């Protein structure tokens, strides 16, 4: 099964300096290399643009879909046998320590 782990944290609220955090992410990725199918980090939420099409016209908003205390900062796509395994890996993502990792199964179309 595939699971998307969405990483939410307050921007600039990391509990260690950037260099340490990057090295922690590197060791996480080394450990998780057999289950990670893909991953990316996102630019700050201040760079977000939201699009809605209404009456055939694009309406743009400068900013995220919703203003929240913790912002989506990146994701991992895991391949795991079940939710328990995915949750174990999600708990190892360094930002889970101070932010929130939301785990969602990828929908299967049969």
């Amino acid at each position, binding site marked *: 099964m595939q*699971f998307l782990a969405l990483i939410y944290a307050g921007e600039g609220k990391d509990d260690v300096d950037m260099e340490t955090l990057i090295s922690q992410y590197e060791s996480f990725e080394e450990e998780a290399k057999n289950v990670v199918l893909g991953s990316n980090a996102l630019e700050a939420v201040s760079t977000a643009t939201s699009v809605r099409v209404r009456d055939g016209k694009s309406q743009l908003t400068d900013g995220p879909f919703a203003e929240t205390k913790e912002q989506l900062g990146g994701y991992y796509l895991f391949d*795991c046998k*079940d*939710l*328990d395994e995915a949750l*174990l890996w999600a708990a190892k993502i360094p930002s889970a320590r101070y932010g929130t990792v939301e785990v969602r*199964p990828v929908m299967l179309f049969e």
Partner: protein
Amino acid sequence: MDEIARIFRAESGKVIASLVYISKDIQLAEDALQDALEQASIHWPVQGVPANSCAWLYLVAKRKLIDNLRKIKTYNDKQNTDLIRQSIISIEGTSELEYDVPDERLRLIFTCCHPALNEDAQVALTLRTLCGLTVKEIARAYLISEVAMGQRITRSKRKIKKAGIAYEVPSHAQLNARLASVLKVIYLIYNESYSAFEGQTLTRQDFAQEAIRLSRLMVKLTPSAEVFGMVALLLFHDARRASRSNSLEAYIPLEHQDRQLWDDKLITEANKYMDKALAYKQAGQYQIQAAISALHCNAPSWEVTDWNQIRLLYLRLLDFNGSPMVLLNLLVAKSYTAELDKVYQELLLLETHLSDYQPYYAAKSDIEGRLALPVAANTSLDKAIKLSKNGSERDFLLRKRAASLKN
């Protein structure tokens, strides 16, 4: 409950668990069992209850389940097809009488109590599947509509299926954390039997018995320190049932209970489980609560209660559960062993945390009474009466209030 209904209740958990193992889908398993129960309701009154009623229900339900699975076109997963094939072979080769239904209930209980489901959903799903209660019965106990309870259960079944919650006993690394969640559900079911519903004595007792049944099942399937602790705790509590109320009083506190009415057989059994728990030498919150109950149950009278030991146990319980409720109990135990005035000062500090908790004011009133502060005691008692959510407890407090007016 008639004989057939009793069998349904007793066997449905085991049957459902084995069916889910095949279908990996609780709803499909329930539908198949429902069909088997309908068949049984038709045939058993005429032909008599089969000697091996569990196997009868299982085999009939399994045939139905496999029929249904075949009808689902998307059901082409290789592994599951193999499972169905094996199941068919095993059905054809055995007679019902000698068939031993595999016990998969441990998988089912860990699945129903998965922490990815919210606690209300865990409790409802466990009562529905493991205990075989109807949605209507569960809804009545939790004072919500049958429709809302149905939705809660359906939603959690769907989440189990879609979210990839495995139908497995958790791996060793996760076992303790997951076990804690199962024990919490059993504890909640038992406690529900003591708090929520008023004037429904029958259902209340049913819930207590279901919790005890589940805890005994856990002892059988996965014995460990806290599991033994849980069953001991529930049995100690249940042993005092007959003394908690009588025809005149719906609630009698421990102090005034007639200890002759306590069930010695249950206390002996609970003591045995307590010993087994302690042999593991792994302390845990349910064992500590059981040990406290054990001290009450084994004390010949209220006067000789070993309050010092109880105080030490509550102190230890704080390591596992630092809630103000545990602190309150600690102070009550201390009130029998230490200088009452000092305990009272500590009790006052707790008020901000428990200002909407009835037992706090009941305990405060009691200590104020013992300190010869009648005005304060009555004020506290009035607060307790106001906060009381349970009719029989309220009646008890009102009687106490009336008695204080006479003095």
